[in-house]
């Protein structure tokens, strides 16, 4: 009789405690994320909200800076992104976008308070690349408030066709120019030259395009003060 109750107690405890056992919980894969790049010159900084929530580190994000780590946004459709200028809380961007799992994105804001512009790129390894870690690849944007068409010069290299005579991007040209274009690896002086051959801006330090580098290079600044022209370099996560 005593034995029976012991057995019952044992079975009961096995049953009850069994629920505490964990099998191999699936680990969520946190790959992917969004790099936020602020090249909006008319304010010191910008505030970012996703789904009306602030994002740590982007609260605010200064001009000419970018989020150091890709920010994970839960995948789904119609994720709302708002960007506010620190100047009188101007809303620069109010958009929705679809976030897919395991994709890296970049959000790039630029333009003026009168004409704020923004686009989101998908940051992919170029197609037909056997070993992504063996190449270096670049994309180039003209995000400066200027009418000039500008060309990116990387060292003595012949300028890549896609990097020639780029006018100020529209959201469409920005999105269309999202592909990274492989270039010869090395360390280069990088400059941006206008259609008359005049140098608009030169990156003050050499840009390291060693194997495995995926880099966005952009021109920012404003024609009203030529001292503001600046060549930005953002190393990107890709997959």
């Amino acid at each position, binding site marked *: 009789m005593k034995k029976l109750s012991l057995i019952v107690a044992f079975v009961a405890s096995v049953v009850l405690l069994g629920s505490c056992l964990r099998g191999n919980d699936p680990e969520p894969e946190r790959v992917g994320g969004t790099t936020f790049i602020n090249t909006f010159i008319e304010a010191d900084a910008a505030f970012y909200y996703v789904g009306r929530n602030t994002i740590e580190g982007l609260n605010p994000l200064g001009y000419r800076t970018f989020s150091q780590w890709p920010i994970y946004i839960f995948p789904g459709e119609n994720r709302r992104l708002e960007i506010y200028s620190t100047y009188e*809380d101007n809303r620069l961007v*109010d958009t929705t976008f679809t976030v897919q799992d395991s994709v890296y994105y970049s959000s790039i804001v630029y333009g003026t308070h009168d004409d704020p512009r923004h686009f989101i790129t998908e940051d992919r390894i170029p197609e037909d690349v056997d070993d992504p870690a063996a190449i270096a690849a670049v994309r180039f944007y003209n995000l400066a408030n200027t009418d000039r068409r500008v060309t990116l010069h990387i060292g003595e290299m012949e300028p890549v066709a896609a990097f020639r005579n780029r006018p100020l991007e529209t959201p469409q040209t920005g999105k269309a120019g999202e592909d990274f274009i492989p270039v010869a690896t090395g360390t280069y002086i990088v400059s941006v030259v206008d259609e008359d051959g005049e140098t608009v801006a030169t990156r003050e330090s050499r840009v390291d395009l060693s194997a495995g580098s995926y880099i966005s290079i952009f021109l920012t600044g404003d024609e009203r003060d030529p001292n503001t022209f600046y060549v930005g370099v953002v190393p990107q996560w890709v997959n």
Partner: protein
Amino acid sequence: MKRNRKAFSALFLGAVLLAGCIKDEEPEPEVRSGFAVVNSFLEARAVQHRLDMGRGFQPLNQGLQYRGIDFYAVPSCVDCKLEIISSNELAQLVDTTFTLEENRYYTSFLFGTETAPLHFVTEDHVPEGTEDPAAIAGVRFFNLAETSQRVTLHIAEAEPIEAFRNRTKETPETGKHAEEFIPTAHTGTHVLTIQDEDGEQLARRTGVALDPGDYLTLFLAGDGGESAPYYIGIVRHRGIN
């Protein structure tokens, strides 16, 4: 002995269990009203609000600056006395009384000049007949500028709302009269412009977010001079009901 212990432990268990039900002094529900203050008084660097002889809303050495907007929760009261004091030699601009009902939102607007300071307090209601206040946006407009012109507020390219057309500088009566928010389905990010009766633009403001559930007071401030250019102020109400 045995029975005694049983009774004792039952009593003890009961005491432990029921102890959780004992309530200490219940916190009194707070009796507050929402009170926003707007300073469109351009002749002083700053002003200080004092309600019911209490402590000033703002620290003494840094009042609410011109164009400043602030939000407070204040004890509700009948015949509350509001004083507004200018940073210019502490001149008293406003000395008035009004009632602040519990759980109601109010906004105080100060404008005018040192010789004729003007002030009114609005009750901030949800527009009548609104089913879901979070589904619509509401706007109202005051001309608090030092101007003799009639001004019209344009929200983006839309036809101006009737109540926002040809507004002369408010008096406390016209301001109070225009306190109702006008519901609009025209949400989004807008450029606001204010024009005089000749269609000339006095002020412009870009990137104004107007989402469902937003209730905004838009006002014109300034006198068009160099030190106080015309300016569109926005009160983004934290609550209305």
